[in-house]
């Protein structure tokens, strides 16, 4: 008996230490619980459709996170984001369809291509400030969409390009675990950057561009790096999603999709990275469970975005922080 208790204690301590070290790399306890819940989802969700919904939520959540990496930190809203996602989809899909390469290789190339276009867009926006950056990236996104529609011989235009799945044997669970891993890896990397001196420079640029320049931060380097990385994520996910859904049309690049990702990221809380993920998991299942609401989905998105912008700019993340403070205060009063 004694040995069992002591060994349990030991396990507890090890767990505590593990969680502690996970916390230091940004995996806070609720986030770990969240990951475990999703990882164990197949145990309590048997419905294929519901699992698919989780995959879609993960997809949107990661996109919102990568979007926030630009919008929430260097304060440049990439309004052509859907264009970059679509570029990733098309690159991978076209490569697989026309050259027959392995879809995984296609994904990597898609990521590279999107990252380079992101880099170029970053270059284009260099002389621009604030709202002009958004406009420029919007125009780039629109151009990509216009290209996808215009190159009918290659992309089949609005009829859509049929894409083979990432792996013939892939089930919905494979997708779930792959995206879950992707989310953790991307979050880990983005968060590592945000917490380094680079992240500090991002925030400096985002808050006061001139002051940042004056204090020796070279915005060129950071802006380009930020844009490239954020677009690389978009390309990777876009490519993956194309293989997951099985068809690509120029519609994926529509500004409406940027709006969805943007809404999630702002509802989640600008500058919080994870806010967007939680917003996706909160909203997408709600929209889906209320089937009759599907029609109103975008209206609700828009309204939520408007309400958050006006009344609660800190979003879900702000709510969470308030909750943490509340608990802390409770603890202090107890002591």
């Amino acid at each position: 008996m004694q040995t069992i208790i002591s060994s349990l204690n030991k396990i507890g301590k090890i767990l505590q230490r593990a969680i502690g070290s996970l916390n230091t790399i940004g995996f806070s306890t609720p986030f770990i619980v969240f990951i475990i819940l999703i990882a164990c989802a197949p145990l309590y969700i048997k419905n294929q459709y519901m699992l698919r919904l989780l995959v879609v939520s993960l997809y949107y959540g990661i996109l919102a996170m990568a979007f926030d990496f630009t919008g929430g930190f260097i304060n440049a809203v990439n309004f052509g984001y859907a264009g970059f996602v679509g570029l990733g989809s098309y690159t991978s899909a076209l490569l697989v369809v026309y050259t027959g390469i392995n879809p995984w290789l296609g994904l990597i190339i898609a990521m590279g291509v999107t990252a380079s276009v992101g880099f170029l867009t970053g270059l284009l926006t260099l002389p621009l400030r604030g709202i002009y950056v958004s406009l420029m990236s919007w125009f780039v996104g629109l151009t990509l969409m216009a290209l996808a529609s215009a190159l009918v011989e290659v992309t089949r235009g609005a009829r859509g390009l049929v894409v083979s799945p990432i792996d013939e044997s892939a089930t919905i669970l494979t997708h779930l675990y792959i995206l879950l891993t992707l989310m953790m890896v991307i979050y880990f990397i983005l968060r590592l950057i945000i917490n380094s001196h680079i992240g500090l420079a991002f925030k400096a640029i985002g808050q006061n561009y001139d002051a940042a320049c004056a204090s020796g931060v070279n915005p060129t380097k950071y802006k380009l790096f930020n844009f490239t990385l954020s677009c690389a994520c978009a390309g990777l996910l876009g490519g993956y999603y194309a293989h997951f859904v099985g068809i690509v049309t120029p519609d994926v690049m529509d500004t409406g999709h940027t709006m969805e990702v943007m809404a999630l990221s702002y509802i989640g809380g600008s500058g919080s990275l994870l806010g967007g993920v939680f917003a996706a998991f909160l909203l997408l299942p709600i929209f889906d469970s209320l089937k009759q609401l599907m029609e109103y989905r975008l209206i609700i998105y828009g309204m939520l975005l408007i309400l958050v912008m006006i009344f609660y700019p800190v979003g879900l993340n702000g709510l969470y922080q308030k909750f943490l403070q509340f608990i802390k205060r409770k603890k202090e009063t107890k002591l």
Partner: protein
Amino acid sequence: MDLAIIQDLLMTGFLRGGLYASMAVGLALVFGVMNICHFAHGEYYVLGAYCAYFAFVTLGLNPILSLLVASVLSFLAGAISEKLLFYPLRKRSKGEWIMNAFLLTAGLSVVLQNLFRVFFGMKYRGITQFWKTTFHVLGMSLPADRIIAFFIAMVAIAALWLFLKKTRIGRAIRAVSQDENGAKLVGINLDRIQTLTFALGSMLAGLGGASMLSLSPAYPYAGNKPLISSWFVVTIVGLGNVPGAIVGGFIVGIFESVSFFFLGSGWQDVASLTLLILLLLFKPTGLFGTQIKSVWE
């Protein structure tokens, strides 16, 4: 190449340019006075088109009256949305107004588009014509609607010019665009001027949508194309530049009709967007960019 084709292209572009000019003037006005990059401008265009359709077809009003109804209703819609959304945002937002307001208009655009879809469905609501005549201009026969829509746009712009230049309130609008604190200190109620400006901008868009009803029918996403084109206009001439927006409207109208002829519809988008990116790259303040901030001097 045939002279007649060139003439035809220029004429089509010119008439289209009239619409873009009036839409872009609204955008420029709203940016110049309120610092809002108005992303939902196209939705007021659609609203105007729907209003004109229901007034003309359902209620059977005469064309002039239908257009009047459309412009009054889009004016009101603009005023209401300003009071409901941008006013509270202005009171709460500290820095970052331009970006926040832009995101707000983006949200508004999504909401309005989908409200249209819910209320009116995806059906195209168009009419064959308001006026049953054709005009003969330079040896070309053009439907009266085209010419009249063009003249309506021009008259609206001229009326706006007179209003801004010659009236007390118009002068106040220009004053707000140049110096907000100065305007407050001479006793101008900023909130009212801003509501009025937004309403005027929406009215211009609504009138545009209404007068073009026979050429492009009303449906929920009809605003996207004119929105992108009028953004094209204000970006090339510089945000907040109203007289520039008029010239720019014609440039873009003619450019679009010419590139459409040579490249076809798909590549025309690519061409205009590429041109726009290049322009923004080499002259970020626009073709007629100036240092002093003002809407129409």
